[in-house]
């Protein structure tokens, strides 16, 4: 398919790899923020082909992984409510809550539906006026416009039985939290191309300035990732710290203004708890006052409970780039996709799942 196959071309991949081997003279640790990129790197075997001096670590860009246990419990509580149809992206279903997962709730009779788009949930609400339809709206900036659009659409169409359970997180504050950690090991970032498609590139300048860290906005295909890594390494080798955009075919400097407008219409920025990482100031979206009636938290009077995390899961250290999945003593033994201890083992964007399914060389760092 146009714009897709070219970026998987083996010849181009090798040209980039050769150039990377020529360019790299010192050890560098680079974090890709986005879990989609983690999967592409692991699945395509790129980690095994990179120069040994380059260590890729895998960031918190997996919305499923960072959704706090308490919110998963809220979703399960809603799903078990007689009059509610709870809709969610498929990824969320197998993530363990404090007692069970949404999938287990569904098996016991809760009405849980997997949807591809929040806009389908609005249709479902129109078809079932006797029910309350709740969409479990998780995601980063990329998904926020679609989730917001569903609410705008519901209001426009006068759909009264639709609401969203928002669990929205933002990339730049998470980057700052990682860089500000005294243990930080990261020399450069690959920023998530699709997040920047929405938000543009400008919000990364202050991070580059403050921490003198190269940031390269990068796409998701093998050629994209290798070009992004090469751009980062070239900067590092020269001692530079700039913001570069590898993914210019999709990402514009100002981002998608209409999408930003839609986000601003429905959401407001608020402090957020990140599973495994902790609270990061001003790092998420909540439904604002003018769309209060579409906020499941207000509609069902939910009060987020702090829930104790499973101490055996080291997902927090992995997402901060301090550990790799192979460093977890439970990896592949007590924790597998069938019996996960933590979210990164079940999410299609989780680093542990990527290593479990695809990693060939067991190379503990």
């Amino acid at each position, binding site marked *: 398919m146009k*714009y897709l196959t*070219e970026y998987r071309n083996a010849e*181009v991949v090798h040209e980039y790899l050769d150039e990377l081997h020529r360019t790299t003279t*010192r050890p560098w640790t680079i974090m890709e923020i986005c879990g989609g990129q983690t999967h592409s790197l692991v699945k395509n075997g790129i980690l095994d082909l990179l120069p040994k001096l380059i260590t890729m670590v895998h960031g918190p860009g997996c919305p499923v992984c960072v959704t706090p246990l308490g919110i998963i419990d809220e979703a399960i509580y809603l799903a078990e409510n007689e009059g509610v149809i709870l809709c969610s992206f498929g990824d969320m279903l197998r993530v363990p809550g404090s007692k069970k997962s949404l999938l287990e709730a569904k098996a016991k009779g809760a009405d849980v539906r997997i949807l591809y788009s929040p806009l389908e949930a609005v249709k479902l609400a129109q078809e079932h006026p006797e029910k309350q339809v709740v969409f479990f709206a998780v995601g980063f900036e*990329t998904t926020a416009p679609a989730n917001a659009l569903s609410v705008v659409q519901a209001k426009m169409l006068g759909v009264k039985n639709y609401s969203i359970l928002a669990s929205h997180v933002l990339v730049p504050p998470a980057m700052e939290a990682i860089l500000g950690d005294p243990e930080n090991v990261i020399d450069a970032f690959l920023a998530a191309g699709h997040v920047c498609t929405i938000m543009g590139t400008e919000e990364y300048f202050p991070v580059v300035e403050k921490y003198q860290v190269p940031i390269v906005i990068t796409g998701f295909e093998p050629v994209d990732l290798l070009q992004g890594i090469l751009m980062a390494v070239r900067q*590092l080798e020269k001692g530079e710290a700039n913001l570069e955009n590898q993914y*210019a075919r999709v990402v514009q400097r100002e981002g998608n203004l209409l999408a930003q407008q839609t986000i601003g219409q429905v959401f407001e920025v608020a402090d957020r708890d990140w599973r495994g990482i902790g609270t990061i100031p001003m790092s998420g979206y909540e439904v604002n006052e003018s769309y209060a009636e579409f906020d499941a938290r207000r509609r069902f009077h939910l009060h987020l409970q702090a829930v104790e995390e499973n101490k055996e899961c080291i997902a927090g250290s992995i997402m901060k780039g301090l550990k790799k999945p192979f460093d977890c003593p439970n990896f592949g033994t007590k924790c597998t996709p069938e019996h996960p201890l933590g979210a990164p083992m079940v999410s299609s964007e989780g680093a542990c799942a990527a290593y479990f399914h695809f990693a060939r060389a067991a190379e503990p760092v």
Partner: protein
Amino acid sequence: MCLAIPGKITAITAQLDETFRVGKVSFGGIHKEVNLSMVPTAQVGDYVLVHVGVAISVVDEAEAQKTFEYIQQLGELADLGEETQQPNPKTGKR
């Protein structure tokens, strides 16, 4: 979840108001209904990047080409001896 894939707009199927448009997008022959509200300039034949049922960007063909030129340019620069010019003493480490 940030998965977004490019597809080609094959038809505009509904226009509720000025910006609210829905279209058919082909992903390698598989057709899906896609909301086009966020890409008001997109026309039939354009490639758009689609995420959870919403088109979030129009793919820029000229920019797409540059990824394949970048590596060639690096090669040509190397031939011109760019790599041998003044090595930077900074380590790049913070």
